[in-house]
């Protein structure tokens, strides 16, 4: 199993744009260790639409050049220590966004269009610091009507964790359709799952309704409890104690190093 995960991690090349899901949608924490061991750095992370433990660990491990996100935190366990430290030190670039702007950028990629308009955002400091966002006048309005245009976000690879896949590579994502949006927008998608089932997930309308077709999925690997310490909807709850243990340890670079040493050893 670990060798499968290492094979997936080898898909990542330095400088790639990697899409990662929000903490409750299905984070492939099982891939974090293999990604760090693989070592491809200079990454541009796209949080869909916010980040947490995985982002913090990849930043702490020095693999990240840029984070495009609407927020990064450990939720109930508090702020993201490595991320906040890297921001304070200017060690990473943050492209601060707002959740629907991330969704809009992915949707533009999904539709094959260069940008999506969205309401809001005008006269914010977010917009002031995003020269890649544009403002244009809505041509359908009678008078002046400025609207923000968000360019397509086209990640190189999307990585997430899901309850199950079938042998053809179809992945069941249930109602977490942001996972499908990530996959549509990304050039490649790699997925870890709790289990691989023999039945064709597209074989009946009930399971097909929640299935991301294999068409969008490059590789699937088995990783039971692969979201831990995050939970996986319908499967298991978040291990808040572990998140707090990490939050406390990672308050210093030394503490982060010690925590990750144990973590990487377990994953070896």
């Amino acid at each position, binding site marked *: 199993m670990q060798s499968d995960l290492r094979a997936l991690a080898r898909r990542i090349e330095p400088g790639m744009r990697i899409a990662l899901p929000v903490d409750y*949608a299905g984070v492939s924490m099982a891939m974090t260790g293999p990604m760090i061991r693989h070592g491809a750095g200079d990454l541009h992370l796209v949080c869909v639409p916010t980040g947490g433990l995985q982002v913090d660990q990849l930043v702490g491990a020095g693999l990240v050049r840029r984070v495009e996100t609407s927020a990064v935190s450990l939720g109930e366990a508090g702020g993201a220590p490595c991320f906040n430290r890297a*921001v304070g030190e200017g060690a990473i670039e943050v492209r601060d966004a707002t959740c629907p702007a991330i969704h809009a950028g992915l949707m533009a990629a999904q539709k094959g269009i260069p940008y999506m308009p969205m309401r809001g955002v005008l006269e914010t400091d977010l917009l002031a610091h995003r020269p890649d966002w544009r403002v244009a006048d809505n041509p359908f309005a009678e008078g002046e009507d400025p609207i923000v245009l968000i360019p397509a976000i086209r990640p190189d690879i999307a990585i997430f964790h899901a309850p199950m896949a079938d042998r053809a590579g179809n992945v069941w994502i249930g109602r977490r359709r942001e996972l499908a949006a990530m996959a549509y927008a990304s050039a490649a998608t790699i997925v870890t799952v709790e289990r691989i089932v023999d039945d064709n997930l597209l074989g009946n309308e009930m399971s097909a309704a929640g299935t991301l077709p294999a068409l969008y999925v490059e590789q699937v690997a088995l990783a039971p409890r692969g979201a831990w310490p995050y939970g996986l909807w319908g499967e298991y709850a978040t291990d808040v104690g572990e998140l707090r243990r990490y939050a406390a340890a990672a308050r210093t670079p030394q503490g982060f190093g010690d925590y990750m040493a144990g973590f990487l050893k377990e994953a070896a």
Partner: protein
Amino acid sequence: MTAAVHPREILIATIARLLEGTRHVAVGASSPIPAAGAMLRRALQEESGGAPLRLSILGSVEHNFFTNGSAELFDCAGQRRIDAFFLGGGQVDGQANINLVGAGDYPRSAPRWPGSFGSAYLYFVVPRVILFREEHTPRVFVDKVDFVSAPGVSSPHIHRPGGPAALLTGKALFSFDKARRGFALESLHPGQDLAGVKAATGFAFAHGEAPPATAAPGARVLALLRGRVLDELSETYPDFAAQMRSELAALDGVPALAS
């Protein structure tokens, strides 16, 4: 005789009042007090035979009415199907600008807070945004935010159906006057006085000479809150509900209510 009331019960009952007439309220993932206020409003509307209130709690399984991923909340708000939402902020200023990104010079903010989440959008499109922050200090309520995650007011030519309706803190309730671009003190919570609130607030606000006290919930409302609402709340926020229960048990007068 008035029963003893927990300070958070004042907040919850006030939120329920602020939500009067809404049909669909959305609440962030870790917002037990706004959620309790919305649950109380729902219970009150049901009791009085009013329009049913729908409550979406982000990240909850019990109260998740969405099936189209995390974009659906924003789509739903853009469709004008969400009447009220709650926002907070590391900083809030006198023009109702909110800052969820960090203090000091961006981008190397110190401290850095998580980020703007959906505020830069929802503040524009949800008709009734309630600003809620329990901590009422000059550190939070500043004259001018260091980073505008979302502005309180927009220029006249900007499409903005939504915006701030009220600011509720641990000390007081304010309304927001869009034309004047400023807050007005509506009421002081029990035990607070005007001078104290002024000292705790980094921005100027309008106020009467003798601001009234924030209304305490009556017996019927308290019974609903301590019964049905706490039961509902414990499904989504078990720790918070348990803490409220134990603090309520310690209050004088609670047994009287049960009699």
